[in-house]
């Protein structure tokens, strides 16, 4: 395959990763929670999309706002119902809680959908178009562009709206934010909701790109968490850069050494952490220095 072609694939894939990983990194930044359930949210959304598509034959992309909203509500409810009680016990216990959520969700999906691959195949599934020599399949194109649009929307929301500023304030200093009237619970449930929403949107995009079954959540957890470690925990620009790196390197590796593509990525993370323990754009916090 032509290298340019491979890179184009990688960039589109990287866009999808960026959307999903920014959700995880937002949750970590505001709540100090490592959301290991993001992969199961994603697969949940993808399988739900498949179900509606196969029942109604609806254009799957119409489900983007629906699944986004649904996952927002589910994420909000998980925060209010479960996380808020465990949060005071620190990140060690919240990660175990989210691990429990991920396993339980996979169990539900297993019972409902069974343990086999499902894929959504709209009419444009196999069509593609050409820019110069580069062939780009429609699903990849749509997913990549849509992911970037949603990500841009979230970014503008965080920058410009009052709620976004409240979130960023809360991420930096919870006590300080509380003093000026920002409820930590409200900010946190909003952040968790938005984080889950990215998985809702991503799930629809995932469904038209790849076949999905419940256990694929592990591939996604590992990829997304790998991205945020590489980018620097809590850094959205870092997550975006790392997503592009993963997308492109995965695309190159799967063109030449398909079996070893994921190994290559995780290996690279370990090597990079060796030289930059806090990731590419991660900041050393006061506590880190003290240790």
């Amino acid at each position, binding site marked *: 395959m032509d290298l340019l072609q491979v890179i184009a694939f990688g960039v589109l894939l990287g866009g999808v990763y960026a959307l999903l990983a920014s959700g995880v990194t937002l949750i970590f930044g505001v709540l100090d929670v490592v959301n290991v359930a993001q992969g199961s949210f994603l697969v949940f959304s993808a399988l739900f999309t498949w179900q509606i598509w196969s029942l109604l034959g609806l254009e799957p992309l119409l489900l983007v706002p629906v699944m986004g909203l649904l996952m927002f509500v589910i994420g909000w409810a998980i925060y209010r119902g479960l996380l808020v009680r*465990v949060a005071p016990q620190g990140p060690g216990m919240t990660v*175990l809680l989210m691990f429990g959520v991920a*396993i339980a969700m996979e*169990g539900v999906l297993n019972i409902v959908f069974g343990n086999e691959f499902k894929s959504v195949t709209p009419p444009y599934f196999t069509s593609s178009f050409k820019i110069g020599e580069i062939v780009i399949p429609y699903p990849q194109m749509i997913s990549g562009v849509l992911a970037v649009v949603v990500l841009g929307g979230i970014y503008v929301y965080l920058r410009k709206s009052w709620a976004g500023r409240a979130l960023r304030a809360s991420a930096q200093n919870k006590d300080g934010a509380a003093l000026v009237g920002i409820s930590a619970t409200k900010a946190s449930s909003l952040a968790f909701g938005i984080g889950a929403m990215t998985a809702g949107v991503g799930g629809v995009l995932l469904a038209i790109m790849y076949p999905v079954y419940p256990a694929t959540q592990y591939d996604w957890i590992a990829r997304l968490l790998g991205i945020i*470690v590489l980018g620097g925990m809590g850094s959205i620009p870092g997550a975006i850069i790392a997503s592009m790196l993963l997308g492109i390197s995965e695309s190159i590796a799967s063109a030449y050494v398909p079996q070893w593509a994921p*190994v290559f990525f995780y290996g690279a993370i370990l090597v990079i*952490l060796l030289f930059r323990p806090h990731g590419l754009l991660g900041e050393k916090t006061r506590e880190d220095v003290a240790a």
Partner: protein
Amino acid sequence: MIAALKRPSGFLPVILIGLLILYPILASDTRYEESVLIICMLYAIMASGWNLISGLAGYVSLGHSVYLYMGMYTGAILGKAWEIDAMWLAPLGAVTAGLLALVVGLIVLRTRSHSFVIITIAVLLLGMLVAANWRGLTGGSDGFIVKQPSWAKDNPTTPYYYIFLGILLLTVALSAFIMRSRLGAGLVAIRNDEGKAASIGINTTLYKVTAYTLSAVPFGFAGAVYGQFLGFVTPSLVVAILMSVFLVLAALVGGRGTLWGPVIGGFLVWLLNEVGTIAAGEFRARLLIMGVVLILVVMFMPMGLLPTIRNFVKKRRESKSAVNFIDQKSIAAVSDVDISKIIARTRQQSEGSSHILEVKGIVKRFGGVTAVNDVDMAIERGSITGLIGPNGSGKTTLFNCMTGTFRPDEGVVLLDGENITRDRVWTRAHDGLGRTFQITRLFKSMTVLDNLVAPLETTSVRQMVAGRYSGDEVERAREVLDFMGLAQFEKQDAAALSFGQQKLVELAQVLMLRPGIILLDEPASGINPTLIEKLATVIRRLNDAGTTVLIVEHNIPLVLSLCDTVHVLSGGEVLTSGTPDQIRNDPQVIEAYLGPDHMVGVGNE
């Protein structure tokens, strides 16, 4: 906490182990029961291993089953190559698993970042991917048949049953040894407050990496035997992840951080799972049930069974015993025992320079703000030196550069004439630089005495394996507590003390390092005048005994009455330095604090 760890050698474990030993002898036709109990023991072993890093040190790992696979593959591959039974390679499995953990630990445990838990998942995935793809070595996803020894044909369970029981006992012995050692005490300190642990001389990186490496050892050992027991090794990611869920659940249910909790949890979780499988018979539902159980345990019984029961018993006992009223007089008093022996360093301090601590050209910027701009300062050996300045003048930043909390952008920090600018926090503690915190950071779940024996004057392997109460630390801790009039609090949890008392205990803790210089971060803030007076007396006594003291403080009268030399910072630079009298009358100082309008009418205090 420590009392609880010392007690587990009660009757109950002995009886249970006795029953486990006798079970195959007394009961007949127990092949199925034995094979279930083998898996129970396997989970007890794994949960105990996991407990060393995730329970003691609080670093949660979700991918520990990769070390079991490491042992399984080591036994299977080398056993085939060398034509011996895989289980004889168990020690080698322990080594390979330990080595893998060492490499991973060295990469991710150098910082306090939460990336640890993520990397553990990634390592599990990576391991399974390598196993599935490296066909030449591992047989790929088809797996690897492990040859059964001839004795297993007659009875494929009982010998394994006793081998796993043996491994379990070895693992518990390893855990008990670590929990009673300084390594164990240090790990608990790290779980409580890692930054603080470093400041009292605990080499946190070394401790964490050691604990992580050791935690993988039982996995690797058991893995080689387990592979042979199963008869095959296949890289199944789902199985590996489920295994991680089970073992984490086992440790949580039983009680992380305790000796027997993970063992009990291992049996409970697997027996329940077995009952569930018989009752429901459906694998798919099992995933859901395990997830829900994990959620429920985290939410409603986060401490686990053993600690919950222990707390209950402890509370009942405490409610029966009489309440001790605190003797206020003795708290206010400072005993007049000779402290020079308690706090004097046994090793020779270099006397090369008359300045014990010196900073040269320190610059520290935060983004666009230069908090400290080219500061030179020298602390005279044997002095009490004050560092004052208005809010935002850079005192705390300078202080943090000295203690190692921040690394300065430019300039050097010299301790006893040696450059320590790039030294880690614990190295500075070893070299005789002790510090307290403005908001106290004692290990709240430990008693006052345990807080005092936690500091380490050096880092060495011999010390890590020594018992946590060995040496003369306990005796010295009691002397220090006596000196400061805190003896009555010895057995109290640090969290039970008032803020002022905690400040005194934290100072006592630092004295255990026998520091040449103590840096006090706003020692008088937030405590009552009686204790401030006592604090001043303690500082003077320490100074008389040869300890240099540097105080950062807003209480100007205290600083001026106590110090030999006072440095005034303003706008990130040294405004002036001098004796208290010079400072008191320096118009620049008054201006820096109050602004030019207030200069008239401010006299001597």
